[in-house]
C-alpha cells in the first residue's frame, strides 16, 4: 500500500525549546439557553499526544471539541492552542486545526472530487496541487471508485470517509475528531485507527471523542472522561486537569458587580 501522506503545520515560535502545550484551557464553560454544556473545564494537553475523550451523552464532548475548533466561543474561560490565544486570534488557530464534526459538511450536489478540491483550495492549496492532493486523499479513504459521484447519493459511511479525506488535505498541528467511528463498517473503523496511528507518528496532537471506547483508548496516550460538563477523570500521560476554578460569587463584570 502506498504511503499515506500526512501534512503537518509548521511549529510556531521556532524549533528550539519544548513546544507550548497543544491545548491549554482555563475554566471553559458554555451555556446553551438554560443548560450548561460545559461548566468549567481546565485541561492542559502536551503537544503530540493522542487523547481519548470519553463520557456519556450530554457530557459536553462535542461542545468542548467545537470550542477547541473555534467553531463556537465559550461563555466563560480561556483557551490557548499551541500557545496562541484562541479567543483573540481564532484566524491563526484555524490554519492549524482540522475538525471532524458529526455532520459531514459536504455539498450534496457536488461530486466527491469537487467537494475535496474545493476544500483543498480553501485550505491553502493552489494550482495543479489541488487536484493531486484531493485525488490522493480520496484514494486513501477508499472512495476512488465513486470520486465522480454526487455526495447526495452517498451512504452515511461514505460521507464519513469523505470527511476523513478532508482531514488529510489539511495541514494541522491539532486534529479534533467527534465520533469518527460512527456509521463506519469494520474496514472504515480500521481506517480511522490507522489514521490515528499516523497522526501520532507525525507528532500531530489528536483529541478524539468516540463511543468505541476500547478502540480509542488503545490508540491514545491519555484519556479524559467528562461528566455533566466537567472533567471527571484524567488518566494516562501528557494531560493534566486543573482544579475547578471557583465561580466567583461577587462577579466583577464590565456592567458592574454582580453579588
Amino acid at each position, binding site marked *: 500500500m502506498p504511503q499515506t501522506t500526512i501534512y503537518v503545520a509548521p511549529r510556531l515560535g521556532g524549533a528550539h525549546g519544548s513546544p507550548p502545550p497543544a491545548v491549554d484551557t482555563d475554566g471553559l464553560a458554555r451555556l446553551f439557553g438554560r443548560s450548561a454544556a460545559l461548566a468549567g473545564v481546565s485541561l492542559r494537553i502536551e503537544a503530540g499526544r493522542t487523547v481519548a475523550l470519553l463520557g456519556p451523552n450530554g457530557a459536553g464532548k462535542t461542545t468542548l471539541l467545537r470550542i477547541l475548533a473555534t467553531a463556537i466561543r465559550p461563555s466563560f474561560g480561556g483557551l490557548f492552542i499551541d500557545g496562541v490565544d484562541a479567543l483573540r486570534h481564532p484566524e491563526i488557530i484555524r490554519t492549524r486545526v482540522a475538525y471532524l464534526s458529526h455532520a459531514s459538511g459536504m455539498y*450534496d450536489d457536488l461530486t466527491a472530487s469537487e467537494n475535496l478540491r474545493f476544500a483543498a483550495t480553501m485550505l491553502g492549496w493552489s494550482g495543479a496541487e489541488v487536484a493531486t492532493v484531493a485525488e490522493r486523499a480520496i484514494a486513501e479513504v477508499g472512495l476512488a471508485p465513486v470520486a465522480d459521484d454526487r455526495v447526495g447519493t452517498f451512504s452515511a459511511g461514505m460521507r464519513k470517509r469523505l470527511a476523513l479525506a478532508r482531514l488529510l488535505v489539511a495541514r494541522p498541528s491539532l486534529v479534533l475528531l467527534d465520533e469518527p467511528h460512527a456509521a463506519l463498517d469494520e474496514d472504515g473503523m480500521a481506517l480511522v485507527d490507522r489514521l490515528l496511528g499516523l497522526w501520532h507518528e507525525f507528532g500531530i496532537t489528536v483529541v478524539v471523542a468516540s463511543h468505541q471506547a476500547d478502540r480509542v483508548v488503545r490508540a491514545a496516550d491519555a484519556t479524559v472522561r467528562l461528566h455533566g460538563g466537567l472533567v471527571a477523570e484524567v488518566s494516562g500521560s501528557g494531560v493534566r486537569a486543573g482544579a475547578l476554578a471557583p465561580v466567583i460569587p461577587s462577579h466583577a463584570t464590565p456592567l458592574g458587580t454582580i453579588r
Partner: protein
Amino acid sequence: MSALRRNATIALAIARKDALAELRGRQAVGSTIFFAALVLLLFGFALGPDSRRLAEAAPGLLWLAIVFGGLLTVARLHQLEADDGALEQLALYPVDRRAAYAGKALAGAGAMLLLGGLLLPVVAILYGVPLGAAWLPLAVTVILGSVGFAAVGTAYAGLTVRMRAREVMLPLLMLPIVAPLLLAAVKATVAAVAGDPFGELGAWLQLLAGFDIVMLIAGAATYGFLLEE
C-alpha cells in the same frame, strides 16, 4: 501567492461552487424563476385588465417580482450550506472572510441577473411593454440592481440562516433596506423604456451604483462576524 490573488482565488472558488450546486440542485433555480413569473401573472389579475394601466405599472411590477424572487434566491444560497453542516466547515476554513463574502455575493448577483434577465421578456409579453430598443440601459439597470440586492442579501441571508423564524426574518430585514434600490431601479427602467425624455436615467443609475458600492463594503466588512456562531 499574494494575498489579493489568494482572496480572488477563494472568492472565485466559492462562487463556482455555489454556481455548480445551484445548476445541479433539483430544479430549485427554475422553481424560483417560475415563482417570480407567476407573481407577474398574478399582478396582471390584480391590476388588470386595462392594458394601459398595466403597461404603466410594468416597471414597478417587474422589480417587485425580482425582489420577491431575489429573497428566495439569496436565502437558498445560504441554505445549501446549512443542509449538511457545510456552513460550519466554511466558517472554519483559514480564508479571509471578505473573500468568502465576495464569492457568495458574486454567486448571488449571478443568480439575480439570470432571474432579472428571464423576467424581462415575460414583462414585455404580459404587459405589452416594448423593451427591445432600450436593451442596453435596461441591462445596466438589471446588473446594478442585481449586484445591490445580492450585496445586502448575502449579508442578511448569512445572518438569518441559523435563526429562528428565518423565513420571515429575511424579508422583514431586507425589504426596508432595498426600498431605495427598488425605487431607483423602477425609475431607471421607466426612463429607459421611454427613451429618457427628462435625462434622469443617469442620476438613477448613479444612485444604484452608490447603493451597490456602499452595501458591498458594508457586507464585506461584517460578513466575518456573521459566520462566527
